């Protein structure tokens, strides 16, 4: 029999802390994040907010954009976590459901709120999530929507604004990518079928899968991607795709013709959250980093660049002051109407999650 057993096997979902926190001796913090998820000085490719943090605290940030996809990243770090080994990272940014899993399996450490005095700045709507009541383990980094993006160069100038069009328009044949993120891809399709993401049934799920399978068999879909959909979209190898809001806004800076739509049938709303993994060597530095970004002024700086929704109270105010034009941006400042059409994928118990995952993986990896 295999010994590949989770630490959770014993039923104690408490992540181990490193025997000694190296934060004081070793003024670094290792941060893994999604690509296109932080402010960039376009001239020299540096990250101003990070540089400012280092200046302020003397803590060097090893910032790595190696978080392309929740599953893929989890698969990478899981063997280490399961074996009780340090992952080499002090903090990373996981989407809600993945953060929930990490807590459940005891792979995420409780935050020392004493090191995060800005903790209270978290938006009220996000301060209490079912999987982390009171935000003891995680704090959100950004929130956003998944919608549809297109490159008019490849669509022949056509706009792509609905899920149906994306999956069936022959003009897009073979030039469509969808997300490996099951909750976004299936979620968008479920909503297009008129289902509610909070209450759909197994049968609804299967119906959505069938829809996707049909599109795939028809050759409509070029691929399923993580955050790496951006390059082919910008290059025009992908005509249209499911995409995360902020990414596309960032791409538009180089390529203003790119189009973006939140489907009228509905779109997913999600958050990505800071997680400090078990055995992180610089937990305290990570907490200082989190605290730093929970300063509304700093968060405003990031959001101004990444164009996602800030989870920090007061950030918007700063932003409006700084750059009034963004106040008009519905992606950063979603109106209640926009928010009303967004939906959050329901929480899944491990058995259902495995069941859905298996079906979805068969679709995307087959």
């Amino acid at each position, binding site marked *: *029999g*295999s*010994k*590949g*057993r*989770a630490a*959770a*096997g014993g039923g104690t979902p408490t992540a181990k802390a490193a025997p000694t926190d190296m934060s004081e001796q070793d003024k670094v913090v290792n941060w893994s994040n999604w690509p296109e998820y932080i402010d960039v000085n376009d001239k020299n490719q540096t990250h101003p907010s990070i540089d400012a943090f280092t200046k302020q605290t003397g803590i060097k940030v090893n910032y790595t954009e190696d978080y392309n*996809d929740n*599953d*893929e990243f*989890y*698969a*990478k770090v*899981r063997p280490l976590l*399961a074996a009780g080994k340090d992952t080499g990272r002090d903090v990373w940014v996981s989407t809600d459901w993945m953060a929930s899993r990490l807590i459940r*399996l005891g792979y995420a450490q409780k935050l020392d709120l004493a090191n995060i005095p800005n903790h209270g700045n978290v938006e009220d709507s996000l301060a209490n999530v079912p999987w982390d009541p009171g935000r003891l383990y995680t704090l959100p980094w950004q929130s956003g929507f998944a919608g549809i993006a297109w490159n008019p*160069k*490849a669509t022949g100038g056509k706009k792509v604004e609905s899920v149906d069009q994306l999956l069936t328009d022959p003009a897009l*044949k*073979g*030039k469509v990518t969808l997300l*490996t993120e099951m909750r976004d891809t299936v979620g968008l399709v479920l909503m297009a079928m008129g289902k509610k993401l909070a209450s759909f049934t197994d049968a609804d799920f299967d119906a959505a899968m069938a829809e996707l399978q049909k599109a*795939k068999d028809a*050759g409509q*879909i*070029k*691929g*399923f991607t993580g955050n790496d959909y951006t390059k082919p979209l910008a*290059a*025009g*190898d992908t005509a249209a795709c499911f995409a995360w809001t902020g990414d596309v806004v960032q791409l538009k800076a180089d390529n203003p013709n790119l189009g973006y739509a939140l489907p009228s049938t509905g779109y997913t709303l999600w958050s990505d959250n800071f997680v400090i993994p078990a055995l992180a060597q610089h937990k305290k530095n990570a907490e200082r980093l989190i605290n730093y970004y929970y300063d509304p002024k700093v968060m405003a700086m990031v959001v101004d660049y990444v164009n996602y929704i800030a989870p920090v109270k007061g950030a918007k105010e700063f932003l409006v002051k700084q750059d009034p034009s963004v106040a008009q941006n519905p992606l950063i400042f979603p109106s209640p109407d926009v928010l009303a059409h967004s939906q959050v994928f329901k929480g899944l118990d*491990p058995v259902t999650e*495995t069941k859905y*995952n*298996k079906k979805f*993986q*068969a679709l*995307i*990896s*087959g």
Partner: protein
Amino acid sequence: MAEIGALAAASEHHKPARRGRWTPYLLLVPGLLWLVIFFVLPTLSLASQSLQTGSVDTGYTMTWNWQTYTEALSLYWPQFLRSLFYAGSATVLALLAGYPLAYFMAQRAGKWKNLLLVAVIAPFFTSFLIRTLAWQIILNNDGIVSTVARKIHFTDLLQFLHLTQTNQLMASPFAVICGLTYNFLPFMILPLYANLERLDARLVEAAGDLYASPVQAFRRVIWPLSLPGVVAGTLLTFIPAAGDYINSRLLGSTQTVMIGQVIDGQFLQVLDYPTAAALSFLLMLTIVVLVALYVRRSGTEELV
């Protein structure tokens, strides 16, 4: 590096002498131990894994669950066949492209021979990922290649052959096969070259002297004599190509997923180790059987 071609020439001419009773074993032990521990054992472990049930987070137990195999096969047989088809096509194409080049280098290049050899070997040392990414640029939809291909209706031909579904070159079976062919071409050329270089040009002359036209001389003399090189080259191309997924990932679409990609996904994304293991094992078995049949048919057993 033409020593790759040694594969073709690895038949044993000299009967090894018998010396020292223990020396050979002392020499063998470290290397073989390495292979036993890190190749044989993992393979057994893989076999065992494929028959277990459980999940990553709860652990696995051996249940002799053969069903994994039938399930995996019923789900993924298209990718399996596709892999064999792509690898086979790439092998044939590599042979068609590599043979003339190898023959030219070996028999006709004269003083350019070494330069050509360098040109063939050098890309081999340049990260293949980088080169495969370069194919993305070359086959890019707005690129010259694509434009010309559309203009001369090459894309229509490909569509007719079901090698692309759209009027583009990228993200199609064509692109994947083209990439596979490209990536493993040196593995085809070097054994062929090593073999053809030893081809006695006088035999070709003798064939001409005995009324064989150039085509007949090729068919009756050059080709049969180069068979060991052909076999070595095709094996060195087919085996890795069948398991490759880089090309299908970078140049293909959901319609071109190969079995390696499935295995990779099952291992690294889905974390369904038994299915992944079962697929791996099936792939290995398929290839070993195919290779054994092929080697026997081509009558070059001494090759391995």
